[in-house]
C-alpha cells in the first residue's frame, strides 16, 4: 500500500463521501437508465453485410464481396502484387489454395523482430467481429489473426470477413468479445487530420486495407 494510494483514496472520501459497499455500487450501476438504442438497424429490414461493405468503403478501404467458393481466387488476386505475404497461425489453408506455387509466404515462427516485419510486403488475416454501423473490423488476435504487430508493421493488410461475423451495431459487436484478450478496432487505413483538419489516408499503420467479405452466396 503506497502512501500516495492511501492519500488519494482519502481525498476521494473527503470529496465524495465514504465508499459504499461494492454490492450497493453495482446495484446503483445496474439501475442506471440506458434510454439509447443498442441497435440502430433492424436486422430483418437491413442487409447488415451490405451496410458494412458500404461503410467500410467510405473510409477508402478496398472492399470486395465474394462467395466462399470465390474466396481463394480473390485472395490470390489481392496479394498478387506483393513480394512477400505474412501468414498468421490458424489461417485456413483453403484461403491460400489459389496462390501461385512460387509465392513467398512467411510464417511468424520463430517470432519476427519489428525490423523483420518491416521487410514483409503484406499480411492476410481473418477477424473476430465486424460492425456494420461504423464499417469497423475488430481483431482479437486469436487464430488466423496473429499477434498485434503482424497487422501493424507491413504496409498492406488483407482481411477476410465472413458474413456471419458482421454485427449490426457497436453494442452487439462488443458483446461477442472476450475483454481479457487484446483488441484492435480498425476502421479504414491509417489516417490523420492533423494538417488543417483535412483527412489524409496512410500514416503509420498499413496504408492499404483490403477487405474481402465472404458470403455463402452472392
Amino acid at each position, binding site marked *: 500500500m503506497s502512501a*500516495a494510494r492511501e492519500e488519494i483514496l482519502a481525498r476521494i472520501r473527503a470529496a465524495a463521501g465514504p465508499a459504499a459497499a461494492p454490492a450497493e455500487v453495482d446495484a446503483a450501476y445496474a439501475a442506471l*437508465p440506458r*434510454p439509447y438504442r443498442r441497435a440502430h438497424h433492424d436486422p430483418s429490414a437491413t442487409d447488415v453485410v451490405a451496410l458494412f461493405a458500404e461503410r467500410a468503403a467510405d473510409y477508402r478501404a478496398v472492399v470486395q464481396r465474394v462467395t466462399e467458393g470465390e474466396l481463394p481466387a480473390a485472395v490470390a488476386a489481392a496479394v498478387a502484387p506483393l513480394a512477400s505475404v505474412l501468414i498468421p497461425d490458424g489461417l485456413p489453408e483453403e484461403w491460400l489454395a489459389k496462390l501461385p506455387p512460387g509465392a513467398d509466404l512467411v510464417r511468424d515462427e520463430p517470432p519476427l523482430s519489428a525490423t523483420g516485419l518491416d521487410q514483409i510486403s503484406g499480411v492476410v488475416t481473418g477477424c473476430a467481429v465486424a460492425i456494420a454501423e461504423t464499417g469497423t473490423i475488430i481483431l482479437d488476435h486469436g487464430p488466423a489473426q496473429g499477434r498485434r504487430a503482424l497487422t501493424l508493421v507491413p504496409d498492406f493488410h488483407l482481411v477476410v470477413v465472413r458474413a456471419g461475423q458482421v454485427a449490426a451495431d457497436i453494442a452487439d459487436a462488443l458483446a461477442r468479445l472476450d475483454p481479457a484478450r*487484446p483488441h484492435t478496432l480498425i*476502421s479504414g487505413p491509417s489516417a490523420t487530420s492533423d494538417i488543417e483538419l483535412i483527412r489524409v489516408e496512410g500514416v*503509420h499503420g498499413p496504408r492499404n486495407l483490403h477487405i474481402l467479405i465472404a458470403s455463402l452466396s452472392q
Partner: protein
Amino acid sequence: MPTYLGMPAFPQAAKKAVADSQLRRNLTHATTAIRTKRAKAVGELDDWEQLRQTAKAIKDHTLANLGTYLPRLEENVTKAGGRVHWARDAAEANAIVTDLVRQAGADKVVKVKSMATQETGLNEALAAAGIAAIETDLAELIVQLGHDRPSHILVPAIHRNRAEIGELFRRTMDDAPAGLTDDPPRLTAAARQHLRSEFLAATVGISGANFAIAGTGSLVVVESEGNGRMCLTLPDTLISVVGIEKVLPSWRDLEVFLALLPRSSTAERMNPYTTIWSGVTPGDGPQDFHLVLLDNGRTDTLADATGRQALRCIRCSACLNVCPVYERTGGHAYGSPYPGPIGAILSPQLRGVGSAIDASLPFASSLCGACYEVCPVAINIPEVLVEQRARSVADGQKHYSERIVFGASGYVLRSPRRLAAAQRVASFGRHLAGRSGRIRRLPPPLSAWTDTRDAPAPPPESFRAWWARTRGTGQ
C-alpha cells in the same frame, strides 16, 4: 500542470492572438470545416441525446464511486499482469515514469499523444533526467519540432497551416525528402518515414488512455494514425499515465463512449484505430506494463459540487471547435494544455486560481452556450463559468470596479431623463477612440471595464436623440 512561464492573463494574451490575422485565418478555416462534419456525423444517430444523457449518468455514477472503482481497476490490471502506481501530483507521476524508464535501461521513449503527460510536463522532466521523449502524433511532432506549444486538444498544431508546416519540416527534419512540398499527403509521408526507425527500435512506450475499464482491467486508446498502435505494441515496456477520472465501470460502457467520442471529435463514425488491452498478453505486445493513476488536482475538483462535472470530459474537443472566443484567440491564449471552453473551467480547478491566467479564465467566454450544446457528456460549461465568476466577484478584488459600473448603469437606466443625459455624455466618448474606432482603455475606475473588453466608439447621436429630432422621417 504547467502554467506556462510568464503567461499573461487571458485578455492580454487574447489581444495579441486576435491581432494575428494568419492565426485567425488558420483557425476559422479548420474549425468551420470540422463543425459542419461533426453536425452531419451526430445527425446520423437519432438517439444522440439519449447516448449523451447515458454517458453523463455513467460518468457521474463513476465519479461518485471512485473509491470503489479505482481499487477495482487496480485489482484487475494487477491480475492481468500489469503494475499499478499512484501519483498525487505531476511531480510524483514524472518521478515514477522516470524511474521506470531508467529501470528499463532506456534513454529514449516513444510517446502517443497524451493530455495527462502534457499536463504533468513529463517530456521536460524526462529531458532533465537525460531521457529523450519522441512525440509520434503528427500534430504533436509539428509542435515538438517547432519548439511550440499545443493549441488544441485533438489537433495541437491547428494554429499552423500547410505552408508553415512544410517550411518547418524542410528546416528541422534532417531526413526530409528532397523537394518536399506543402501538400498534406507529402508532409504526412515525410513524418511516416521520419518516425519509422524510431518505432522499430523503441524499447519503452508512453501513453495515456481514453478509458480504463474497472471491471476488466482494460485500457482503451483511441487514435487515427497508427502511431498509437506502434507505441502500444512494439516496445518491451509500456507506461500509461491516466487521470483517475478516466475509469469506467464495465466493458459494456464502451458501446456508449465509442459511439460518442469519434463523432464528437473527428466527426467520423469510428476513428481508424482503437487499441484495447488488459495487462500483459504473453507473446503479444509489451511484456512489462505499468499504469500510473494520476490525481493532480482531480480530487480537489471532485470536492466542488458544481465544478466536478468537468471531470466527465472525454477530451473530444467539440467545445473548442464551436467556441466563438476560441476561434478568434486560438488555444495559446488560455495558457494551459487544456484550451477552449473546457480548459477555461478545468485549468483553474486543477491548478487553483493562484496565477493571473487562471484567475482570468472564467471570464474568457461570452457564455453563448454552444459548448454545452455539443458536449457529448453534457458538461454545463456556462454554469461552471458563472459559478467561478460569482466566486471571483465574491472574493472582491479583481472585478470590484465592474460592480461600480453595473451599479451606476442600474441608476441611469431606471430614469429616461438620466439615460438621455448619459447618452449625450457618451457621445463625447467618441473622442476617446483611436483611429481604429475602438476604445481600448478608459481611465480608472472605468478601466476595469476596458481591461477585459474593447468597446466600439459610441455613435455621434443616440437613437433616442435621433428619434426626438426627426420623428423617424429620416431627415
